[in-house]
């Protein structure tokens, strides 16, 4: 191969190979692990992305640098993607009426009007008596 301008590449002494492509084996680049990062003590671990690795110990050392080299982080989890279970997006209508369930929300309980009406009534009763 013509000498590379990159001295690192030139030192590799690559013999240029015009014939075909090297075959790449199945799962040669590993399987995927999902990475969860905890930015500070007290916070949740949050999904940050995926690494390919052969096993959890490799996944951890890879995840640290791919997902922890810029953001501040105190802890990380890795989980094999095969161990993650989820709902289907097609069934997201199961979640649709959630905002309507005000019986579970603080905003679903308004007592001010009732209190004011009651106090008005009591005050009126006192006035009527006297």
């Amino acid at each position, binding site marked *: 191969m013509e000498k590379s301008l990159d*001295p*690192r*590449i030139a*030192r*590799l*002494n690559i013999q240029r190979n015009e014939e075909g492509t090297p075959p790449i084996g199945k799962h040669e*680049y*590993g399987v995927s692990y999902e990475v969860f990062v905890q930015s500070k003590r007290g916070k949740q671990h949050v999904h940050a992305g995926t*690494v*390919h*690795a*052969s096993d959890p*110990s*490799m996944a951890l*050392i*890879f995840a*640290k*640098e*791919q997902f922890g*080299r810029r953001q501040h982080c105190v802890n990380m989890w890795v989980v094999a993607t095969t161990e993650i279970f989820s709902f289907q997006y097609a069934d997201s209508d199961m979640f649709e009426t959630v905002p309507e369930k005000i019986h579970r929300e603080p905003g679903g309980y308004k007592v001010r009007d009732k209190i004011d009406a009651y106090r008005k009534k009591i005050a009126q009763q006192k006035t009527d008596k006297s």
Partner: protein
Amino acid sequence: MNKEAAKELMLKMADDALIYGHRLSEWTGIGPILEEDIAFSSISQDKVGHAWQLYQLLEVDFGTPNPDQMGFERKENEYKCSRLNEFYTRDYAFALIRHFFMDHAEFIRYSLLRASSYEALAQLAKKVRGEIKYHVLHADTWIKKLGTATEESHSRMQAALNEAFPYALGIFEPGPFEQELIDSGIFIGEEQLRAEWLDEIRPLIEESGLQLPSTTNAEMGGRSGYHSDDLAPLLEEMSEVVRSDPEASW
């Protein structure tokens, strides 16, 4: 404080970190697995960063030239790096074995330096040690895997180990101020460091299905400025742009 002793110690640490970090950076963009390429590049930056911090401390406390001048403009025999770090390799097994030997030595060295009587160095050591903890974890994970996985990976790792070990012993080449460093509490000395290093790596080597060679002949010379054939071309390359225009700032 014995200034000459402290300066000598820090200079060899800085030179080790710079030359080693430089060799690691040769893999950025061409690593064997994408995720590993990324991890190795972080280790490379950490090392170069440690060198930079050490040269900065040398300038502040000992009036040496600025870090860029120290790192990029000295003559070959002025560098005090150990020969292990100088070697060029295109063999990832050698790169990993060197990483294993070097980072265990550095981890113990910086751990010991946290108790140094030289306060500024002790502070630096506390900071740096955390980064090297990851380097050691990375190295251990890899050699345990490759040492035991396949016949080929095992024999490559063993061959690399056999080649690197005598030079790894050269990391602990005693300097001219060993006794002064010990007496003044700056550092516990290379002999003690080597003993702790051997204790630490022996079980890990065994766990990795590998064997340390029985010979204990150390390949030395780096600490007194006598280097392998690989250093001069490295320095020439590293300083190529800097030398192309000495008046310039980049």
